[in-house]
Every structure is written in structure tokens, then in C-alpha cells.
């Protein structure tokens, strides 16, 4: 009998390796990606009568008592029923993540059996111009947070004249609260490879690089193995699926610099330089890696391309709201009962996501605020949770979509401390190129410390500083660090006033 135990880093962090080892004595174990229900990890699945039944969270000590239930379907306290029927799974529109958790991530055969390579085959049929048109029609925008239309970026690179062009995947997923890229690399790496190959064909690039952060050793290992499989299967190489198009790719590993998630500093890092930000123009689409035309796309954008090509841009554009088309992998984390990844069309409100899908706080205490979009995203107070999830909708409330991570805090959170952390993080990670970010973040920490000591004269100075950083910084690091700071200050002013006594730790 076949059972599945995720190899995803989150499942491993909760003991999946030990569970897999214990099950291997009695079953054929496949290591899959995670379904995204992290609170149920390690989630063991077994196939009976063509349906996959879930059990979780399973600890190694549970395995002996679980074997009979897995074989026969006998009742068991950890039994969850058919996985696809679980409310969390049924409520989703899993397009980008359709195979994550379902297939063996390194099986090209299973990948194809579940719809893989349909997009690449159609891309080869319709040719570069039609591919770019389809991506444009889909309304897909950069999933790293900037929200730039992917089709327009591709058109610029396609139109640039150069002997060599590149596809660079930004997998420097440094935002706390984000793990969508990691889940793809570990759970369905072939979809990224397929997406990059399609991008290469569309713009005339024959080489791709995935810039992955060093904090993701599991992702690097799985993705590199998948690239090897893709070469063997003829998906990568001199002739992509037997066509006249060549495309190959490799993984490059970052070195612990958050700012390298910014596309120009990523390119510098890829070239072997300090990861400092470049002034734009020139834009990377015209002068990117090694000065050549380069598509720099977020991993989720690229991993969504195969679905778009397989089903057509119009089908994708039917989903979502306003100018936020398609689906978005929402990542729920922090102090949340049901944390994980939930892919849905844009448009759900934060309240639906946090309360209905996430089940409220893990601690059982009232939810106070959620940081949306990573360390540079705003803290949205609970009374503003009716904002629909979309680029413009969040922007209108001085918040950001970012990489679609939502980190939940209960009422014990100390907003001044979180604001200070945002400035401190910016100071540590600043590349140093521009003054508002390099100096401003240090002054920000000092000013918040003054306010914490009870000096309210620091508050207008902090506001002024945030304004300077927001408008004067070269990139989003210094430019967006004011979002968490100002949102904390705006929505929770009482936590910044009259602080003579140090407060209790946020987590206590």
C-alpha cells in the first residue's frame, strides 16, 4: 500500500522524517509536498479505493497504532477523512498549487499525469508573440508585491535586441510570514521549471537562474534534483520538448541578505557583487543580468504561467476583483489556529481569511492586528479587517499586498516594539546605498527608543522621518519600512504615548 508523508520543510520541522521512517517498514512511502494545512502536519495520507484519506498531525509515536487504520480504514482519532473533502481544501481555487501535496515532486510522469507540460506544449504551438499576448490577457501581475503586469515586462524583454537574454526567478523569499515559494520548490518544482521554459521561449532567452535564499536548503536540494529530471526528460536542454527552442537553468544560492529580494540588488548579487540596489533606469528588462535584457519575475508569477498557458489567459482573468486578476496564495501564519497556505481568487476580506479560514488566534485571545505583506507591510488593526484582498484595495488603506503573507498577532502584541523591530530590521538589512534608508532606519530605532522612554516629542520626529524614508529611499526596503511603523503609530497611538514604564514582552 502506498502512503504519503510530506518532505516539506514545515512538515520536517514537525517530525515528518521520523514518521516516514517508521511507516516505511509497512508501506511504500512517497514524500510529497505539503497540502498547506500546516496545523495538521505531519499529515499522512493513504490511498484506499482511489481516494486519499488523511491522518494528522501524526507523531512518530502514533505510527504503531495507526498502521491498522491506514490499511483497513478502521476508526482512529487522527483520521480526517478524504483530504480533498476537507473544508480548507474544498474552499480553495488551487491553480498554481494544483499539484502541491498531490504528486511526488520529482516524478515527471506524475507531473504530466496531473496536467503538467500542457502549458509548455501549447506555448510551443502558439509561439512567442501569442504567449506574451496570453500572459498579458491573463492580467497576471508580479506576485512579489510590486504588482507590475507580467505580460508587459515580457513584451519589453522580447522586443529588446541582444545576443543573450535571461530569465531570473526571484526565490529570495525573505518576508516573514511567506512560504509560498518554498512550498512550490519543495512540492512541485517542475511547475517552476515549466514556467521558466515558457518565459524563455516567449522572450528569446536560453538561460534561466533561480536565485534562492540560503535559508531554504531543502528547497535548493529538491529544485536541483528536479532540474536534473527535467534535463533527462527533455524539458530543459538544447531542444525543449523536441522543439527548436533551447532553454536551461540553474539554481544560485543567496547569502543571507534580505535586500537581495529587491530585483536590482538580486541581479548584482547574481553577478557576484555586493547586493546593493541599482538606480533605475535602466530597467532590468533592458539592462539586467550582466547588462543584458532580463526578465526578473517572482517565483509564484512564473509558477502560475503553466496554468495560464494551459487554460488560456481569459480563463485566469475571469477570477479575482478589479485589477487583481486570478488567484493569490494566501499564507496565514503567526498566532493563528489554522496556519498554512490557502489559494483563492482575490477578493476575500481579511476577516474571512483570518477568522473563517484561519479560525482566529492560536492562543485563543482576541486578534489585535495582522501584518500583511511581510516585514515591510502595514499592521492592519482588527477593526479594518473588512478590506478585500487585492493590490489596489489594500493600497487604498495604506497597506500592501506584498507576497500575500498574513501574520496574525493577538492582544498581547506590543505595537511600539513591533514598530521598533521594523526599523531595526531595516537598519540591519539596508544595503547602504541611499541615505534615507541607511541613516533613517538607525535614527528610527533611536527615536522609537526615546518614545518608549516617555518622550512624546519623538512622535512628530518619527512621522517626519518615515515620510523622508518613504519618498526618498531608492528601493522598497527603506521606502516601505515606514508602513509597519506608521500603521502601528496611526492605529495604536495610545501605545506610543505616555510610556514611562517598559511594557511586558509582547509574547508573554
Amino acid at each position, binding site marked *: 500500500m502506498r502512503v504519503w508523508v510530506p518532505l516539506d520543510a514545515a512538515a520536517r520541522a514537525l517530525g515528518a522524517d521520523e514518521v516516514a521512517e517508521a511507516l516505511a517498514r509497512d508501506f511504500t512511502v512517497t514524500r510529497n509536498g505539503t497540502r498547506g494545512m500546516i496545523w495538521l502536519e505531519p499529515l499522512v495520507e493513504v490511498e484506499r479505493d482511489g481516494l486519499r484519506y488523511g491522518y494528522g498531525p501524526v507523531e512518530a509515536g502514533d505510527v504503531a497504532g495507526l498502521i491498522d487504520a491506514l490499511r483497513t480504514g478502521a476508526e482512529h482519532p487522527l483520521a480526517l477523512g478524504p483530504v480533498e473533502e476537507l473544508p480548507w481544501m474544498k474552499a480553495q481555487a488551487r491553480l498554481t498549487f494544483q499539484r502541491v501535496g498531490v504528486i511526488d515532486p520529482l516524478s515527471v510522469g506524475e507531473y504530466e499525469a496531473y496536467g503538467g507540460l500542457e502549458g509548455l506544449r501549447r506555448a510551443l504551438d502558439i509561439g512567442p508573440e501569442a504567449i506574451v499576448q496570453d500572459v498579458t490577457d491573463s492580467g497576471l501581475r508580479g506576485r512579489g508585491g510590486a504588482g507590475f503586469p507580467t505580460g508587459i515586462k515580457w513584451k519589453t524583454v522580447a522586443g529588446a535586441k541582444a545576443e543573450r537574454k535571461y530569465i531570473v526567478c526571484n526565490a529570495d523569499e525573505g518576508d516573514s510570514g511567506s512560504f509560498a515559494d518554498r512550498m512550490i520548490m519543495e512540492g512541485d518544482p517542475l511547475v517552476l521549471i515549466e514556467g521558466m521554459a515558457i518565459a524563455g521561449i516567449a522572450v528569446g532567452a536560453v538561460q534561466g537562474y533561480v536565485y534562492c535564499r540560503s535559508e531554504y536548503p531543502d528547497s535548493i536540494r529538491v529544485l536541483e534534483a528536479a532540474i536534473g529530471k527535467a534535463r533527462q526528460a527533455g524539458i530543459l536542454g538544447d531542444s525543449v520538448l523536441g522543439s527548436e527552442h533551447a532553454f536551461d537553468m540553474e539554481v544560485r544560492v*543567496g547569502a543571507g541578505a534580505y535586500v537581495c529580494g529587491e530585483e536590482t540588488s538580486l541581479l548584482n548579487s547574481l553577478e*557576484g557583487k555586493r547586493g546593493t540596489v541599482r538606480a533605475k533606469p535602466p530597467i532590468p528588462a533592458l539592462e539586467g543580468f550582466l547588462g543584458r535584457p532580463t526578465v526578473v519575475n517572482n517565483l509564484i508569477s512564473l509558477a502560475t504561467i503553466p496554468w495560464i498557458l494551459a487554460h488560456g489567459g481569459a480563463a485566469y482573468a475571469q477570477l479575482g476583483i478589479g485589477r487583481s486578476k486570478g488567484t493569490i496564495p494566501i499564507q496565514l501564519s*503567526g498566532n493563528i489556529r489554522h496556519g498554512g497556505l490557502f489559494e483563492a481568487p482575490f477578493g476575500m476580506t481579511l476577516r474571512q481569511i483570518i477568522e473563517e479560514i484561519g479560525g482566529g488566534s492560536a492562543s485563543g485571545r482576541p486578534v489585535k492586528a495582522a501584518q500583511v505583506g511581510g516585514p515591510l507591510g502595514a499592521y492592519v488593526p482588527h477593526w479594518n479587517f473588512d478590506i478585500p484582498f487585492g493590490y489596489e484595495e489594500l493600497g487604498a488603506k495604506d497597506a500592501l499586498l506584498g507576497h500575500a503573507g498574513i501574520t496574525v498577532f493577538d492582544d498581547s502584541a506590543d505595537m511600539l516594539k513591533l514598530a521598533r523591530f521594523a526599523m531595526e530590521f531595516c537598519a540591519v538589512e539596508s544595503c547602504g546605498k541611499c541615505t534615507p534608508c541607511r541613516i533613517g532606519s538607525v535614527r528610527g530605532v533611536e527615536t522609537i527608543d526615546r518614545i518608549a522612554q516617555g518622550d512624546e516629542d519623538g512622535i512628530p520626529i518619527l512621522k517626519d522621518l518615515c515620510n523622508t524614508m518613504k519618498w526618498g529611499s531608492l528601493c522598497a526596503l527603506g521606502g516601505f519600512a515606514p508602513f509597519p511603523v506608521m500603521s502601528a503609530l496611526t492605529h495604536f497611538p495610545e501605545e506610543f504615548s505616555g510610556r514611562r514604564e517598559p511594557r511586558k514582552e509582547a509574547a508573554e
Partner: protein
Amino acid sequence: MIPAMSEPATDADFTERLETILGAHIGREGPLLPILHDVQAEWGYVPEAAEPVIAAALGLTRAEVHGVVSFYHDFRDHPSGRHVLRLCRAEACQSMGADALADEVRAALGIDFHETTPDGRLTLEPVFCLGLCACAPSAQMGERLLGRATADKVRRLVAEVDA
């Protein structure tokens, strides 16, 4: 104390090992980061003596190479302890008590972040996100990952690695 290392610059096979690493990457597009990662994997840090050799091989100045080494958090200019324990300090982990956990771990180990235990066994480092945000707080030690970390779980992890 940290075990004494042979002085790399005078070590005969130092150059040979470095040349092997360089040989594997020269000719690639943007070879410096892959080289530095391999150098650190080989010696546990980036020996200062390696910088001029790498610079000469890539047609860079020594200052340029040093500038890259010093820019990135990952690259060390001295060896770490035999094991490196990393605790995530980012927001999602903070929301689940990472700061209190860090205090407990620091007290239990008797060292602060960026410090190594006197027996050279363990270095404690902060990390800003392991992507384990839905099972926070998290920790990492080599290949081992820890979700929903507690001080007890961290202590067990530390005890196991040398067992």
C-alpha cells in the same frame, strides 16, 4: 576555546583545495558567490588568505572580494562552533513567543547571539525567517528543523547532535 586551526596561508594543500574550488566555477556567469559558498563549506569560514587568490583568479581587486564577503551575513571571517543553532527572530515567530524562547535558550546555553560556547561546540545565531511561519516559533540546526519550538525541544535538539 575554538579548536586551533592550521594557518591556512602556510598550509601546502590550502592552495590546492582553493584551486580545485576555483576550477569548478571559473567560466560560469557570476562565479563569486558560488566560490565563496564552497570556500566556506570547505573551511567553515572564508579565510582571509583566500581573498587575494580568488581576486586574482577573477580579475578583481582584493578589496572587491572582501567587500562581497563582508556584505553578506552568511559569510564568516572566523570559524563557528561545531554546530550552529539558529533561532528565528522574525515577526511570525515573535507573535508566538520567539523573544521569550530566545531568552530561555540564551540563559540555558550561557551565550548570547553570535557567540560560541567555551567548548567550541555550539554557536548561537539569529535568523530572519526559515519559512516555517505557520508553525512558529522555529529553529534550525544543520539539517534539523524545529517547528512550534519550545526551550525543551531546543535543548533536546542540542543534546542530540553530539550524542
